[in-house]
């Protein structure tokens, strides 16, 4: 173990931790103000509000039609999770197990939608989706959200598949299983932890995916994050507490899934792909 010795080195270590602490205190303060405000009766010139109430939640539920918005959100997220799993896992299997001509090109094809920011490809994508008539409906939102998530599933799954001994599959083949049966009876059970991790990460990312949904959603296909944006940008029209009540509903929806996801994955994986096996 390397120990820091000089005073300057110790001072530096302190400075680094102080910086981290400052960041976290402000981050938690930022989240806490939203929660406190959502329960406040009036809050102007004091540290804490004058009184507390829960009525803003009922108000927000009616004003923003949160019931409908939540249903749409779960429909979109559910469809995105299932379809990106169905498209992504088999593709990841082929990428992990076979060497074929053009594989580097295919890999590039899957990397691009993850590296190019949604706002850059979102506008041409929305244009095409409007042209074919998909945008404005829930399917337009689902299709747009699948563009970054399918490659994400592939990139997360490749190292998981590479860890599995290929002799397992050979044995299944010897016993006469076709590709489909080998998948359902051998691979999927072995890969369950990896698939679960990848799909939970897709879920968390899709709930918070603003740009793509914003560009393709119509009045009936808004998800929670787009409805929240609309409420925040129209501040002044509604009571701030009511907007914050909705923000708290959004936070709970997102963070509950995040906590579940973190039981299966390392936080680092939310931004990077899984470590090489």
């Amino acid at each position, binding site marked *: 173990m390397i120990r820091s010795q000089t005073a300057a080195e110790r001072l530096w270590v302190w400075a680094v931790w102080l910086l981290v602490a400052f960041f976290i205190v402000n981050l938690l303060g930022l989240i806490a103000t*939203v929660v406190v405000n959502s329960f406040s009766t009036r809050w102007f010139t004091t540290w804490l509000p004058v009184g507390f109430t829960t009525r803003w939640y009922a108000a927000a539920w009616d004003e923003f039609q949160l019931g409908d918005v939540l249903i749409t959100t779960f429909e979109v997220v559910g469809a995105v999770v299932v379809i990106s799993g169905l498209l992504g896992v088999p593709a990841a299997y082929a990428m992990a197990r076979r060497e074929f001509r053009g594989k580097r090109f295919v890999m590039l094809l899957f990397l691009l939608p993850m*590296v190019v920011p949604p706002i*850059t490809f979102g506008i041409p994508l929305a*244009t095409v989706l409007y042209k074919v008539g998909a945008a404005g409906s829930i399917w337009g939102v689902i299709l747009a959200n699948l563009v970054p998530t399918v490659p994400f599933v592939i990139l997360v799954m490749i190292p998981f598949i590479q860890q599995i001994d290929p002799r397992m599959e050979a044995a299944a083949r010897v016993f006469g299983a076709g590709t489909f049966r080998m998948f359902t009876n051998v691979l999927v059970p072995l890969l369950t932890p990896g698939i679960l991790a990848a799909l939970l990460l897709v879920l968390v990312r899709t709930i918070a995916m603003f*740009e793509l949904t914003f560009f393709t959603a119509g009045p009936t296909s808004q998800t929670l994050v787009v409805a929240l944006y609309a409420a925040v940008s129209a501040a002044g029209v509604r009571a701030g507490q009511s907007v914050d009540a909705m923000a708290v509903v959004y936070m709970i929806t997102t963070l509950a899934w995040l906590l579940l996801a973190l039981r299966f994955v390392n936080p680092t994986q939310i931004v990077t792909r899984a470590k090489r096996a």
Partner: protein
Amino acid sequence: MSLRASLARQGLDGVTLLVLPAALFIVALFIYPFLYGLVLSFEPKVGGWLANYAKFFSEPFLYTTISKTLLIAIPVTVLNVALSVPVALRVRLIAKPKLLTTILVIPITLGTVLVAEGMLNYMGPRGWFNRALLEFGLSSSPIRLIHNYWGVFLSLVITGFPFTFLLTLSYVTGVDPGLEQAGAMLGARSWDRFRTILLPLLVPGILITFCLSFVQAFSVFPSALLLGEPAGSTRVISIAAYTAAFEEYDASMASAIAMIMAAVQVAIVVALLAAQSLVYRGPAGGGKG
């Protein structure tokens, strides 16, 4: 030899075909729209085929969005990377970083819209942040931190720093700790160990982190609208593209702006990578092998 067998020798069999649905999906919904947008950008509503680009680069209201976006994105990325490296080097030494990384992943998960709403409360003139500044006597009047350049800047630090940090951490933990211990045993002080051992190994990783963080910051959108001055100093290029597409309903102009946005991002990333290969020659893998 049958066709099937000869294809199989090149690695093309039933299993390889499993890649097709996903690849076709990306071609249809990513490559095709991009090419469609590129072609559409040369078919303006009025004027010759270059009219959109000519308009963009002749109207100050449009072309200044590039410099305004760069003026936000580059300082934010430099700051985030500069903070991430020392913090990641510290965090790598602690035994259980999971609590810390979990806290830091929260702003990424919540997304820019919620962070914007939080900042409007927290950093507003009557928010806790300004209240604390006044209370501790650090300032005599509230500092304006929202609805200007700094609002967008800070929101990009709040969501961008965790992203940059977690990426950097994954590179930093990939460096073999034995290398640094060897340096320490030979008497190198921590600054020398950083300069001569860690930094050269980390340069490729830091550069990739910088590129990814920059691309994220350059495409700032909801926070520039909610926390900035969307008509003034934070009229970023994504706002120009959005306005063209969804307020003026000019898909051709919007596509042209999206293409310009992509071109600037590619230009900066290519310039950085080229600079690296000119200035720095070292292991490409960052010691991660």
